[in-house]
Structures are given as C-alpha cells and as structure tokens.
C-alpha cells in the first residue's frame, strides 16, 4: 500500500510559518486551514483568499494534432476553443462515466494545458496517452514543473493589479500593458505574463464561486510570488486559505468534486453537467454513444438539499423518504455564508419532490430540494 511520506508543496515552509494545519490529500501534505475555516471562507466571499494548489496536475498536450486528439479524448470540443480561453470539460470512460473533471487552457494553436485533480493525475495522463495514439500529438506530464496558486474573492483583481513586477508577454512587454490586459480579462480567459522575468499564466478561473485568478508558474517562483501577493493584499483583507475553506466555498457554489459528486459510475447528466454534452460535436469521442443515449439520464440525479438548524448531512449519509432510502449525500456542511445546512446528494428521480430527510446518524433531518447553486455572487 502507498504509505510513502506525502509530498510537500514548494510553499510548505511558508505555510508552516503562517501557522497552517496540514492534511494529507492525494499524496500531498497541504494546508487545511490557517486561522480558521470560517474566517477563511468569509474572507473569500467578502475580500480575497490565497490558495496553494500545488497538488493539482498540469498536463500538456502538444502538436499539430493536439486539437483533434483532445476532441477524441474528452467530452468537450476543444478544437473550437480559441487561443487564450479555457474550457471546463470531462474525461469519460467508454460507459459515459466521469473519470475526471478538467479545465483545459488553449495556450496556442498546437498547445493545450490540461489541469486535472491531483488524485487523478496518473489516470488522466494514461488515458490521454492512450487516446492521442494515431494523432500527431504528444502528452507531457508537467505537474512537477508547474505550480499553481489561486487568488479568489471580490477584491482579487484590485490586489493583482497592484502587484509590482508583472509584464505582458507580448510585443509590448511592459507593466502598463499587463495591467491593461488584466483589467479587461474576462472570465475563463487567460493571459501570458512574466513576473520578475519568469513566465506566469494568469487565468480568470477558480473553484470558489467568486471572481478570482489562478496563477501557473514554476514551483521555485511560488514562495516569492506568494509573499508579494500577501504583502500587497493583506491591507485589502487577503488571507491565506486552506482546503477546508475551499471545500465549503465550492459546495455553496454547487461545484462538483471528483470522488464525491463525480465518479466513474455517474454520467454528466446525472451530475447536472448535461450542458457539457454537445450533440453536434464533429468528432467521435470516448463515451459518446453512452452519454448520447437516453440511459445516460440515470436512475438518480444530483440535487441540492437544504435543512434547518446547524447539523449537517455528510458524504455517505442516506437520504430517506419515510422509511425508504432514496439517495445518498455526496457532500454536506453547515453553509458558512447562508447559515443553514446544505448538501448535494444523488436522489432517485421519482423521489426528488418527496418529503425528504437526511439520516444523520440515526436522526432524520428534514431536507428540502433546492436548485443549485446554493450561492451565486452578485453580478
């Protein structure tokens, strides 16, 4: 069994100095919290939080056939994604089950950056390598050479605009140009920059339900970049934020998490991601027949549940209609923003409108089905 010492982030010493508590996650030792889960959660909703996401997997797909290869390998139609844009999509198995959810950045005509969950690094690399066979493309696992930090929250952009040392990586490689590009950068777009002479990919993406940016750079650059972001942002309310806050933030935003809402046994439609299935897509892809079949709707569907009080349903707890088990909770917490318990659960389609309850260790907690997300930021 893998009992190797967990890997440490390049920011490990920075986190220790900041008083972080650590948790083991997908073979990495990562900060679970610094000051406290709730304070960090609220800081991201109200100001900004800084996350170390060094554990995420970065995989490059390169070559003249990269676009066609990804069209064949993934659910989305990446060949139609313009350079400079990102797309959220899924890696499916042949039965239409979800093997991972991905953010894919088109970094050039012949280049893509695929960002996968840490736990799925090997699966995604293996599947992509298998699926690019026959295309003029290659797959490079760059996880060890690309680090990632995310600044998330309504004040993220103003903080990033104040950080000194950035320059645009284009014909006008200046700080002024960088700030102009950053100021007009739209959601799910990214720009290439240099910070102190080192390349950084600055993307307006995230996993918290707030505005924010993800910064991809060499791992060795991260400690200095983290320090300058904290120095500049602290006065605006920026705090370091751990995986615990990240989880409650994404849950409120109704964002699925691999291993909870997404598994190899659930289809995109069941997970509420049917919009990602493009019936007009030009190329065949792994899982297409399965996800275009009526059976992809599945017997159970992902729903949002809200309850009263302070006690939350947790992953694995049964959802009941009277004495009948009609579903199972995949994620749940007392929502820090909303103040009541929330959960995502797979529930039998014919029971979605029933008087449901979550079986909280023997006590039924009445729960109401509500639309996802639980929380959306004001436009």
């Amino acid at each position: 069994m893998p009992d190797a010492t967990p890997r440490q982030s390049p920011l490990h010493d920075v986190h220790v100095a900041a008083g972080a508590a650590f948790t083991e996650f997908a073979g990495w030792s990562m900060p679970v919290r610094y000051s406290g889960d709730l304070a960090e959660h609220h800081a991201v909703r109200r100001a900004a939080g800084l996350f170390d996401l060094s554990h995420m997997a970065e995989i490059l797909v390169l070559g003249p056939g990269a676009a066609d290869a990804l069209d064949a390998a993934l659910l989305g139609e990446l060949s139609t994604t313009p350079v400079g844009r990102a797309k959220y999509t899924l890696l499916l198995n042949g039965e239409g089950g979800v093997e991972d959810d991905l953010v894919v950045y088109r970094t050039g005509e012949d280049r893509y950056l695929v960002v996968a969950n840490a736990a799925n690094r090997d699966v995604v690399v293996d599947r992509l390598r298998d699926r690019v066979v026959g295309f003029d493309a290659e797959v490079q696992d760059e996880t060890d050479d690309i680090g990632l930090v995310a600044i998330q929250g309504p004040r993220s952009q103003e903080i990033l605009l104040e950080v000194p040392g950035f320059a645009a990586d284009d014909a006008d490689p200046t700080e002024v140009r960088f700030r102009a590009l950053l100021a007009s950068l739209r959601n799910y777009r990214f720009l290439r920059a240099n910070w102190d002479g080192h390349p950084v990919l600055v993307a307006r993406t995230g996993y918290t339900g707030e505005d924010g940016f993800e910064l991809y750079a060499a791992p060795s650059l991260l400690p200095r970049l983290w320090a300058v972001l904290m120095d500049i942002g602290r006065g605006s309310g920026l705090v370091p934020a751990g995986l615990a806050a990240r989880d409650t933030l994404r849950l409120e935003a109704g964002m699925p998490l691999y291993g909870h809402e997404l598994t190899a046994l659930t289809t995109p439609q069941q997970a509420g991601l049917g919009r990602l299935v493009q019936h007009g897509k030009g190329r065949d892809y792994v899982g297409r027949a399965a996800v275009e079949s009526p059976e992809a709707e599945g017997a159970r569907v992902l729903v949002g549940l809200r309850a009263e009080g302070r006690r939350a349903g947790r992953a694995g707890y049964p959802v009941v209609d009277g004495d009948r088990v009609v579903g199972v909770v995949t994620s749940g917490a007392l929502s820090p923003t909303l103040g009541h318990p929330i959960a995502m659960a797979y529930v039998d389609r014919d029971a979605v409108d029933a008087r449901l309850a979550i079986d909280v260790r023997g006590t039924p907690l009445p729960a109401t089905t509500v639309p996802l997300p639980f929380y959306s930021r004001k436009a």
Partner: protein
Amino acid sequence: MANEQDLQYTADHEWVDADGDVVTVGITGYAAAQLGDIVYVDLPKVGDEVEAGQVIGELESTKSVGELFCPVSGTVTAVNADVAASPEVVNSDPLGAGWLLKVQVTGLPDLLDKAAYDALTGAA
C-alpha cells in the same frame, strides 16, 4: 480555566478535571484544532447514565464530525448550555468556558497525565 497540568486526559482527546466525585469533561485544544471551527455540539442530558468509552455526543465542524467518548462512568449532572448556543467557545477556550459536561463518577479509569498526553500528540 483549569490548569492544564492538573487535568487528566484520554487518548481520544478528552480532558477530565477530577476534583472530588463530580468531574468536569471537555475536549483538548489539540482536538478542537484538529476539528476546525466547531459549529454544532450534541451532548447527553442531565441524568443520563454514562459509561467510560461510550460515545455520548458529537462535535461537528464545517469540515468533519468528531465523536465525544465519555472518559468516565457515572451520572451526568450538568451540560454546558453555552456551548450548544455558541459552539465556537470550544475552539476559543476548550479547557475553560468550552467545558462540555459534569459527571458524578462511579468509576474513574486510568487516564493520562499531561506529559503522557503531550507525548501522544507530539507536543513539545
């Protein structure tokens, strides 16, 4: 707040203030920190008979659920209503205002002293 040197501890991270035949029970600062921000506390009722090692309550954080194991046997004589209303007190003052319950003991098992508990948690 009790002097932590005078308390006794369990391997399940409860503390016991065993001064006389009514003891006060809480969870340690280490346990509270491991749980994260505590948002819900479920405790037994006054008058309940409890046994050492039995699960008598739960502490929920935003992140997880922790079970409260009773460190002693006896009858519950008081529960801390303040922590039900303001569970965060368990994080801010686990050995003081964040106490959980008082038990009239009939049996007090062998517990850990501060040094033994520190050795368990790896504290300096």
